């Protein structure tokens, strides 16, 4: 197995260690690579403060779609996780919060019933206990293997965001690449503050679908974090190294000050 990766941004051969030491960013051209969710989680939370909950929940093949059971089994083995999101309690500069990290490696981070229920439970716990909720997204959208059930999970997660809004508990979103489809069209766009990592793919319809519909070239930068910032859908683009301090600041500034 090769220990080097060719950077798609500048063609430079990078060692895995070099890339890891630089937070998954090419040291020569600044290209952002996808990183494992645990890696990002560790960048965000205070050391050893993450306590996962809901990790035992497992998806089932509710519609009996051929191949789904095998796919789930393979992805569990591959990721050592039961599904495509991890939810847990943490502290950030000593401030308590709930952190949800989607895992693109598990079936493209797709949202089925379990992913949505875990996110919903996390948001509802946040609403009840007055804890800010942070969700790092990474998802191709709804999980096709769960058919209509996966569509309804957009409703479920959005309803949870609505409940947080009703009781004025903050929801912070960190968009990472890629975030598309049913995740973009639900909780991912419902944060009180929406941050994005640089260069992430963020959009609703896939670029190929759009190209197929309109039959013309897509503009450069289309559906990137930078595009979303330009069009007003992202509050700020935040470098990985700054995620911890930015989220810490957001938690501090969203506390209600007693009169």
């Amino acid at each position, binding site marked *: 197995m090769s220990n080097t990766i060719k950077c798609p941004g500048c063609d430079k051969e990078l060692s895995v260690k070099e890339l890891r030491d630089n937070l998954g960013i090419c040291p020569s051209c600044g290209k952002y690579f996808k990183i494992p969710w645990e890696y990002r989680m560790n960048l965000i939370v205070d050391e050893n403060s993450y306590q996962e909950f809901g990790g035992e*929940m497992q998806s089932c093949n509710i519609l009996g779609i051929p191949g789904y059971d095998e796919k789930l089994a393979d992805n569990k083995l591959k990721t050592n996780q039961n599904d495509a999101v991890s939810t847990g309690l943490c502290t950030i500069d000593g401030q308590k919060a709930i952190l949800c990290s989607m895992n693109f490696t598990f079936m493209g981070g797709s949202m089925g019933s379990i992913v949505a*229920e875990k996110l919903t439970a996390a948001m509802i716990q946040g609403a009840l206990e007055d804890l800010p909720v942070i969700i790092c997204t990474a998802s191709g959208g709804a999980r096709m293997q769960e058919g209509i059930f996966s*569509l309804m999970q957009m409703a479920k997660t959005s309803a949870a965001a609505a409940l947080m809004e009703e009781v004025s508990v903050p929801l912070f979103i960190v968009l990472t690449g890629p975030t598309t489809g049913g995740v973009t069209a639900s909780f991912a766009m419902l944060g009180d503050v929406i941050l994005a990592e640089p260069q992430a793919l963020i959009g609703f319809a896939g670029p190929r679908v759009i190209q197929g519909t309109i039959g013309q070239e897509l503009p450069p930068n289309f559906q990137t974090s930078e595009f979303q910032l330009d069009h007003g859908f992202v509050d700020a683009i935040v470098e990985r190294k700054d995620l911890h301090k930015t989220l810490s600041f957001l938690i501090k500034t969203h506390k209600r000050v007693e009169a």
Partner: protein
Amino acid sequence: MSETYEEIKERLSLIDKVTPPRSAWSCVQMARNIKRPGTMDYINLIFDDFMELHGDRSFADDPAMIGGLAMFGDRPVTIIGTKKGSNLKENLDCNYGMSKPEGYRKALRLAKQAEKFHRPVISFIDTPGAYPGIGSEERGVGEAIAFNLKKLATLKVPTLSFITGEGGSGGALGIGITDKIYLLENAVYSVITPEGFASILLHDPSKAEEAANIMKMTSHDLLELKIINGIIPEVEEGAHTNPEFTAEAIKQTIEKDLNTLCAKDPMSLVRYRLRKIRSIGASPDQHEWWQPLLSLMQKAEKVKN
């Protein structure tokens, strides 16, 4: 001549275990039939009068999403619905029923207006999905749909939706989170088209017919899965051969539901809706999870007032 309303009701009540009258694939074709009655047809047949309200107050008026005010008997209601158009010119104007962000934002504006004036919201859905284009993305179609889902989940008035043809994914859901959801007998509702499902999961786009079966997208499938509340009957040959019949069935459904739902206080409507939404798919073990939240919501409401 076709069956009477009573005969169809009888037939539908027997449907429980018998084979559905049409295959999933033939429902897909029926749902896409260009002659199928659309939102405007049902509005004209069901409501005494209708005044269309235009625009999202921000960017444009999307002809693919219509909305406005009407009387249902003595009751004022707000109507929102997708529009495919009934001739080629209208089809093109309406992008074949594919709404852009401004369409979803118009629907949201009208839903909020309905809440402010305590009017029920009734939506009619027939869309292949939201419009996938450069402008749609530039103006945040994902954000627009997301905000509708969030607002509709806790809207403090009764809401009903009728999927009359194609219920195409997020584009349909964007105006379809309601207290009660009905499918016309030959309508379909799914997260992706059978063609898309076949090409992604069966690795063969020509297997759309097989995909339609697997996906559970027909009215009978969705009723069994408890995604929808009921089926609106059509005559044997399909709604386009007798729109009056289907319109009458929708009318009776609205009448019955509004009588029940309008009698409920807003918080119990919201509680019912939230419970229902959360129960789809994996649901929590605790039975009364919503109770402490509703007390918090009520407290927050008092602070605001």
